[in-house]
Every structure is written in C-alpha cells, then in structure tokens.
C-alpha cells in the first residue's frame, strides 16, 4: 500500500512506564488525529507500536523487527537512554531515521546521521536550575538523586556543569527509586556545612517522598526538583503543603494556561493538552510532550520531503526550522540533531498548590 | 593392628549424653554387632564413627590412624562405608544409578575429561556400570535396575542401600538395621550376604534388632544402654546376661525366638 509506516518502541510498562506510557498514548492519539484529517500529502499513516518494557535488549529486537519485518520508514521511541542507544545502532546500520525520546546528550553527540532527539538534555535542565540559583545568590548546594537512569544521568550532568555557574556541591546523596524514606540522606545534607539549597534529580515516587521528608524534617532551604516530576500529579503526591515553594525547570506544557497569549507555544500546547486530557482522562506529562514533538517533527519532515523514503525523511528532519513543539522550538542542523536551546525550559514554582512561572 | 578401633567415644545433645565412653574394636573378617534398647545410642555411635557427628570426646582409629571427626567423604576414601537406618536414597536417580554412585571413588576422574567426554571418562563409567549391575544381582534387584529409586518398596530400598555400600569395596562396613522391613526369609538372604562379605575380609559393624540374625552371624556382640556399654562378649554369653535380658531382650527366649 502507499501508506507511510512509522515504527515506535517505547517503555509502556516496566520501571520506565512513567515515560513510555504517556508516549505510547500520545503517538496513538496523534496518528489517529492525522489520519482523520486525511494523512500526510494524502497518504495515511500506519503506526506499529511495541512495548520494550525499558529493556535495551528487547528494544534492539523490536527495532530489528520494525525495520526488517514491518519495514517502517522511520522510528520514534526509546523512552530511556539505554533503549535509545540500542535502537539507534540498529537504525543507523539500516539507515532508517530515528527520533529518540530520551534525555542523554550522548544520543546525538557526536551527531549520527540518522538519529535525532526531542527532549532537552539533562544538562540543559541543570543549567536552567543553576541559572536560577545564581540569581538567588546560592553558591553551595546539596544533591539527592535517584539511582535510576534518569536520576543518575542528571546527577552526573549537574556535577559536571555546576562549576560553570560557580556552584559547589557540598553533599551528594542518592536513593533507590523504590526507597520509602529519605530522611537519613536529607538529615545528612541538612547537617552539611554551608548548604543553601537542595537539588533532587529523579522521577517517579522518589521525589515526592523526598519532598515530604524535607518538610517533615523542617528544612527551610529552597528545594529544586527536576523536569522528571513536572506534572500536576507530583503536587498531589507530595502533598500541597510540602510542595509549596518547590522550583523546577519545566516545559511550556505544564503551565499551558499561564502562557502569555502571544507565546508561540501556546496554541500547540493547548491543543495537545486538551486533546490528551479529554481522551485519556489523565493530566498531560512532559514525556508525552516529547512524543508529541517527535511525531510533529516527523510529520513536518514527511510533508516537506514529499516522499517516504528514509533518506529523504532524514534530510528533511535535518532541515527542520523553527518547528514549534510542546518542549520548545526546534531548529535542526547537520551539527545539531536536537535543535533546542535553554529557552525551552521555564523555571516554575509551586505557589498556592499550583504551578506558576518564576519571572 | 586392629582395623577399626573406637576409644572412649562420647557425645551429648542439649546436655543429654546420647553416647558415653564407648570403646570397641573390629578386625577384618569379624562381624561385631551392637545391640541395645531403642535410643541406646547405636545409630549415634555410627554417626560419630562415620564422621556425620563430631564426637565430644574419644577417638576413632582406622588402621591405626586417628580419623576422629574426619569428613564422611574422606572416610569413604579410606575404606569406610555404611547404610542408614533412615534411608538415604538418591530419589531422583534410577536404581542402577544409585548403585553406580557407590562406585564414585573408583570412577571419578578429572572434571575436564567428563565435560569433554574423553575416552578415559567413558571407560570409567562403563566399568562402574558393570560393577553396579553385578551388585544389584547380588541383592536381588537386577530386575529393578532401570526403575526410579523412589518407586521401590521399603524393603527393596533397604537392599539397594546395602548394594551401594558394598560398591565402595569397603574395608569397614557399618550396617544400621539392614534387615528392618524384611521378613524372616528375606532376612536370611541378607544374613548370608553379610557373612559372605565378612568372609572376604571386610570388618563389619552391625546394628540390628533381629536377634536371630545377630546371634547367628556375630563374632562379638556389644550391648549399649542409655549410651553406655553394659555388656559385651560372644553372642551366647551376652544373651544370657541378666542385665541384657532386663534392658533389652525381655526374656532369654527372645534371643532365640524364631520370629
């Protein structure tokens, strides 16, 4: 058939279901939407979606399957860095464009011809946070990170980039994503000389528990969370009282209603947010947004390429310019297969139990 | 030199002396029987001799060497073999394989040879199998060779254990109630087998409650009661000992009763 076949392998179950589940739901929704509108250049899109459970070995198998068996023209997916790395090596070998939904910079650095990615990097999140800290005159901080892929990767990036902002990490603690109590680590941080703020990279329940324990211990220092928990669910889980004053770098999606009317992202995020929440009856998350953007990039490229040849798609992807997504505005080039800058992030703070923009 | 000699062996469980200061000797070709009431400490004595329990006191000498508390598998390689009152069968293997297992010391070799199926490994295995079949025939289990050991009746298992113990070609053989679960006729077969083994120069230590068997084949009888030796001597002598009759036999006829 003349259909365009797009493959996806995401972690809809398993430890990274947090990421993969909204991604899968988003992709299914968007494909349906676009087909209802008559497809791209008149051709319908068929989505072949697999759940790799966050296992890189499985992801590699599914990537092989998508390419060799299902003969897709492009792949979106790889919710975690590990699965993305697995998929990209297959895709590069087969010369099929691949848009990764994972955070690590290694995925697109060094640039690989067929691999792109949508999420801002952990490093950018760290930079955004440190910028904010700088503004508040914070120089010494304590970190408490999850040992999962997300937490560990961001922990490393933040440690790496902290010096550039003149920030000293005086305490560096971790917790297992399944841990139930972090008061021991937080006590240690509190008792560390000179700590002025605490930063918690991680996703899942860990950050919620950290936030609660933080208040339980009565720590008054500013608490920074990561974009890993940028969702309304986090406020609910951590409890409105505990979460008051917490800051984190988030995407426009989270504060869709607060965006200025002239904000270029406003229409895009509002459309996605309304559609998703209506359909799935659960709040949108940043991660679903990555899939949204990945799909938008692909649709945009397909439209411009006017062909579903992998080669043509790749070229068109690389030529993406000023595409407005939920995460930010993408402008790709041969040297940059991510195409976002720090402006993609907005510093948010919980005030009165809801997100607000930090000016 | 005595083949096996035990000197002042003793052990206690939770303060209770199960065996206390027991000494005895066995020479090649001899059958020494240990009798005594239930709980007298016979099996415990066996367990100490064969290295399963560590004695609290005393020592075990095998061919003049002190082997007290030595691991069972080392004792096996020095020529000690035994059967159990509570059957210890390799339930997950066939009857034949159980018997072959008894040949372990003769058939074992380099693991690497086994992994690579080298001719030496095959040769050893073949020899063991032939030996095992012969032994099964000797205890009347040749027809059951390929059955799963777990599916044998109690009496047959008892005999399988004897076959396995004989496979080690022991210098000392400890038999714990070999005739339990066998009727009079079957007991006689076992009786003969033991006598033959002894005649071939093996030292045999026997625990058995079947007095007919004990009286018939023992060269020497040791009587334990509450962990202590209360009498010893020739079978006929012991069976007339009033202390033995009171503690164990119940009546003198019991020693000669035909049942």
């Amino acid at each position, binding site marked *: 058939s003349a259909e365009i076949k797009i493959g996806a392998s995401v972690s809809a179950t398993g430890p990274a279901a947090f990421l993969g589940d909204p991604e899968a739901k988003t992709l299914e929704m968007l494909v349906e939407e676009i087909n209802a509108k008559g497809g791209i250049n008149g051709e319908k899109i068929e989505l072949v979606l697999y*759940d790799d459970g966050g296992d890189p070995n499985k992801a590699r198998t599914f990537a092989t399957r998508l390419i*060799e068996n299902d003969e897709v023209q492009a792949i979106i997916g790889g919710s975690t860095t590990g699965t993305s790395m697995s998929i990209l090596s297959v895709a590069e070998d087969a010369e099929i464009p691949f848009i990764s939904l994972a955070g690590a910079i290694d995925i697109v650095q060094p640039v690989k011809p067929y691999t792109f990615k949508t999420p801002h990097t952990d490093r950018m999140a760290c930079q955004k946070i440190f910028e904010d800290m700088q503004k508040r005159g914070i120089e010494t901080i304590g970190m408490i990170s999850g040992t999962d892929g997300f937490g560990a990767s961001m922990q490393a990036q933040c440690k790496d980039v902290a010096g550039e902002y003149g920030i000293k990490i005086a305490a560096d603690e971790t917790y297992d994503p399944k841990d139930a109590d972090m008061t021991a680590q937080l006590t240690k941080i509190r008792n560390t000389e000179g700590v002025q703020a605490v930063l918690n990279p991680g996703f899942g329940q860990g950050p919620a528990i950290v936030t609660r324990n933080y208040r339980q211990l009565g720590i008054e220092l500013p608490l920074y969370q990561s974009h890993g928990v940028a969702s309304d669910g986090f406020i609910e889980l951590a409890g409105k009282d505990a979460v008051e004053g917490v800051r984190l770098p988030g995407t426009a999606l989270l504060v869709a209603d607060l965006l200025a009317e002239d904000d270029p992202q406003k229409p895009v995020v509002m459309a996605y947010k309304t559609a998703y929440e209506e359909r799935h009856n659960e709040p949108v998350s940043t991660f679903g947004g990555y899939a949204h953007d990945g799909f938008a990039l692909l649709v945009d490229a397909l439209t411009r390429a006017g062909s579903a040849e992998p080669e043509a798609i790749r070229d068109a992807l690389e030529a993406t310019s000023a595409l407005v997504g939920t995460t930010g505005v993408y402008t790709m080039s041969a040297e940059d297969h991510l195409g976002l800058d720090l402006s993609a992030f907005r510093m948010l703070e919980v005030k009165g139990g809801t997100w607000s923009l930090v000016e | 030199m005595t083949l096996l000699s035990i000197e002042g062996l003793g052990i206690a469980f939770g303060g209770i002396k199960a065996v206390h200061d027991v000494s005895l000797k066995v020479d090649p070709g001899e059958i020494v029987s240990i009798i005594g009431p239930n709980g007298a400490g016979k099996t415990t004595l066996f367990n100490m001799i064969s290295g399963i329990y560590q004695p609290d006191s005393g020592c075990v000498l095998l061919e003049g060497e002190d082997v007290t508390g030595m691991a*069972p598998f080392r004792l096996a390689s020095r020529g000690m073999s035994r059967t159990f009152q509570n059957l210890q069968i390799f339930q997950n293997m066939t009857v034949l394989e159980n018997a072959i297992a008894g040949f372990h010391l003769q058939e*074992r070799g380099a693991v690497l040879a086994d992994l690579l199926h080298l001719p030496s490994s095959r040769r050893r295995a073949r020899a063991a199998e032939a030996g095992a079949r012969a032994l099964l025939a000797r205890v009347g289990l040749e027809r059951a060779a390929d059955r799963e050991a777990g599916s044998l009746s109690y009496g047959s298992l008892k005999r399988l254990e004897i076959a396995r113990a004989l496979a080690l070609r022991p210098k000392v053989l400890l038999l714990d109630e070999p005739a339990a679960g066998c009727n009079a006729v079957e007991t006689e077969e076992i009786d003969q087998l033991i006598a033959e083994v002894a005649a071939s120069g093996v030292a045999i230590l026997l625990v058995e409650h079947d007095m007919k068997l004990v009286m018939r084949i023992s060269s020497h009888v040791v009587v334990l009661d509450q962990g202590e030796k209360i009498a010893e001597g020739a079978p006929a002598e012991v069976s007339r000992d009033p202390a033995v009759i009171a503690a164990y036999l119940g009546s003198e006829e019991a020693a000669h009763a035909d049942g």
Partner: protein
Amino acid sequence: MPRLSAKSATLLVLAALVVVSPLFFPSGYYYRVGALIFVNGLAVTGIVILTGYAGQISLGHAGFAGIGGYACALAPVHLGLPPALAAVLGVLISGALAYLVGRPILRLKGYYLAVATLGFGILVSMVLNNERQLTGGPDGIIVPDLGLRGLLKDWGLNISNGEFWYFFCGIALLIGAWIALNLRQSPTGRALRALHGSEIAAQTVGIDVARLKLQAFVISAVYASVAGSLLALQNKFITPDVAGFMHSIEMVTMAVLGGAGSVLGAILGAGVLTLLPQVLTVFAEFEQLVLGLVMMLMMIFLREGLLPSLLRKLRGRDE
C-alpha cells in the same frame, strides 16, 4: 536399529533446528530472535547444571552474565584486549568470583542459598549501576565490535549481521549443550545428581559435596558469563539490566518452565519465554497478563516442565 542415546538425539534436534529454521525465515528479524533464543539457551544450560543436576538454586546468575557482558565493553577500552579475548577475561573473572563467592554460600540450602545468591547478583548490578565513571551507569555503555564478521568477509563469506550472530550463537549453544550433556552421563554428573538426592548419602559414598557444588557453580557461572558476552557483543551496547534481578529470575524461570533437569527442555523453555513477548505484542495492553497466565498454566499442567511432561505424556500413550 540402534537406539539413539538421549544425548545424540538432543544434539541432533538442536543442530537441525539451527540449520533448518533459517529456510523458513521471512525476514532478518527472525535471525535476531533466533540468536536471542540461543544466547538465553546457553545461559539456561548453565542453570541446568547447577539447578537441574545439582539441585542448587541461584537467583543471582545474571550477575555473571553482567560480568561477561561488561568485560567485553570495558576490557577492549581499558586493557586494549580484542573483544574475543575480553570475553575470555569475563569467563575468568566470573569463574574466579563464582569460586570465591561459592565457597562460603554453597553451604547454605534452599531459600537461604537463594537469598545469598540474590544478594550477590544485586551487589554486582549495584556496582555496574553506580560506578558511572567506569561502567557508564544505568544508561549503559557501548561495546566494541567483535570484528569476526569483517574477517569472514575478507575470506569471502559475506553474511548479514543478523545471520552472523544467529549462526555464531547457534554454534556456541551446540557446544554448550554438548558439554552439559557429556557431564550428565559422566561420573561427575552422576555425583552432582547424587548430592541433589541426599547430601549425606553422597558424602558416605565418597563424594566431596562441597567441592562438587562449587564446581557446578563455577561451570554454570561460566555459561552465564559467555552468554552475557555474546549478548553484549551482538547488541554492541550493554546496560546493567543484564545483571539485574529480573534477568536472574528469567533464567531460572526459563529452565524450570522447560524442564530444569534436561538440557533440551531448558533450551525449549528459553525459546518459549524469548518468543512469547514477541508473539504477545498482538495483545500489547494485556501482554503481562497473558505472560503471567501462560507461566502459571504451564507449571500447573506440565509441572515437571514442558519437555519432560510432554515426553511422559507421549510415552504414556504408546503403551
């Protein structure tokens, strides 16, 4: 007609499967699945030796797979070893570690052994996760190419990546199965099964139980390590997941599901559990549900494992 021994029959069936299956493969993806089955089959064959023969449970064998895999990732970079030698290094480290760890913990029995091995596996995976400088942390690390395919190409044998790994792993599995089958019928194998039946009786026939268990543990660790190396080399990428608890559980499940006492059975189990998720993608949403259900049903109705139970049923019908 002389009766085929179980060993020759198993090897024949396996060899036939490896060689004939590709005739029916519609696409390259099937080679990939085949290769995965062979790798898992190899790991599980080690479990057969440890659990099926010797009756010792391990919930930490993925740790050895992790060591094998990371050896291939790290040794070429840090020690400059070629990947194939790195795998050998992995085997040596796994074997040595199994020896050191096995000595104290193999005294434990049943669930206590299970929890001790579990602890070992968790320690390994924790190191792989947390020593980011060295291992790349949870995000994983790139594994250099084995280079053998290039070599084959130079010799005029040009096969695709998928095909290469399919046959390479297939051969590895055949060798692994051959060794495990040799062991079973050998004096050592018999001694292993004997200690499974009764450790006390095994001792009294002269079997050095502690040593033999240790040997089985080391051998099975080597199997896991080789499997881990093969996986890493063919994926060209590795994450600490290979060493994770779930992977250990998966290995044991494959072995038991297929029939832990039989090499062919266990490999069959590996096949079923590797294929199942691929087949179940049709159910997407219900994949886990169905997987759990299949596991339960198979164990309820084929309690000795897939192959032994099926053979028993077949034989039952003959008579």
